[in-house]
């Protein structure tokens, strides 16, 4: 069986804040925090990308490299303010595939 060169992790998250944010804004906030904590090299190694985000439900799925999962979790945990208001990003499930995340829902 072929082995994937890059292993990914899909992280389900929820934004606890009173603000309504777009997918791009959330990804910017997460990327900036990762950049602040781990620098350009660390942040780029994580290869963060937003898979989906529901701005009404404030829930989304972000993808990162398998090796950077703990760093991504740290970046998410270190977010305490969004646009000057108190906020937090809570991580739910983590899986190696989107299908896996959905399977955990059942």
């Amino acid at each position: 069986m072929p082995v994937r060169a890059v292993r990914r992790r899909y992280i389900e998250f929820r934004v606890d804040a009173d603000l309504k944010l777009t997918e791009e804004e959330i990804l910017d906030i997460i990327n900036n925090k990762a950049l602040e904590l781990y620098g350009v090299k660390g942040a780029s190694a994580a290869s963060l990308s937003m898979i989906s985000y529901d701005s009404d439900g404030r829930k989304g799925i972000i993808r990162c490299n398998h090796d950077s999962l703990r760093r991504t979790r740290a970046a998410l945990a270190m977010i305490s303010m969004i646009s000057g208001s108190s906020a937090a990003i809570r991580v739910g499930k983590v899986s190696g595939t989107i299908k896996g995340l959905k399977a955990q829902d059942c």
Partner: protein
Amino acid sequence: MREFIDLRVRKPSEPTEFERMILTAKEMGYRHLGVVSNSDNMSSENPLGMDVINRVELFPTSPGELLSSLSRIKNRFGIVAVSCSTKAVARQAAKDHRVDVLMFQGDLSERKIIGLDEQEATLAAGTGCSFEISAIELISASSARITKLLTLLKKEIAIARRHDLPIIMSSGAATALELREPRALSAILDLLDIGEESAFDMISTNPLSIVDRSRRKLKPSLNGAGRRRL
């Protein structure tokens, strides 16, 4: 399976917010919470099933003040934490068996001098004291401050490890939004180059052993252990 404990949650003045905090902590997978309350009459009427440990925090300015505070609060709290504001206070707290947790907070330039040193680590390890890191200090720090804070904490952690002084990690949250999941606290410890297993120990086995030790120390008449079933 690990039992997680957040040993430092600051009780908000609003009871509804406190209830929200307990519910959030429970959802996150915590089984025990150390609640900072300077009153030993914490309500025991709460059907949420969280094990709440009464914690007192002392902010003495001199060793004498620390000693008198310790005798005043004798056996009334599950956890006694001391915020060390001077070197003399830190030394006294480290060698006193009544102190469970050493905290170093405040201005970074002062903390460079006051922070945990080899002597305090030796004394504290001998009395069963622990060194505490509060996540809120890191979470709320500005970009400029966090760099210096991480450097300081790394130095203190290295000293604590050299002397087998247990290290604990707590949230220091005062609202439900400031609480972080056990895995999130463990991930934050990645910033301090602490591996995942050691990080989990800092939010489960290390703080739980303090709670158990303190339980044994307290009089049976005082609710068995300074722990109240909420």
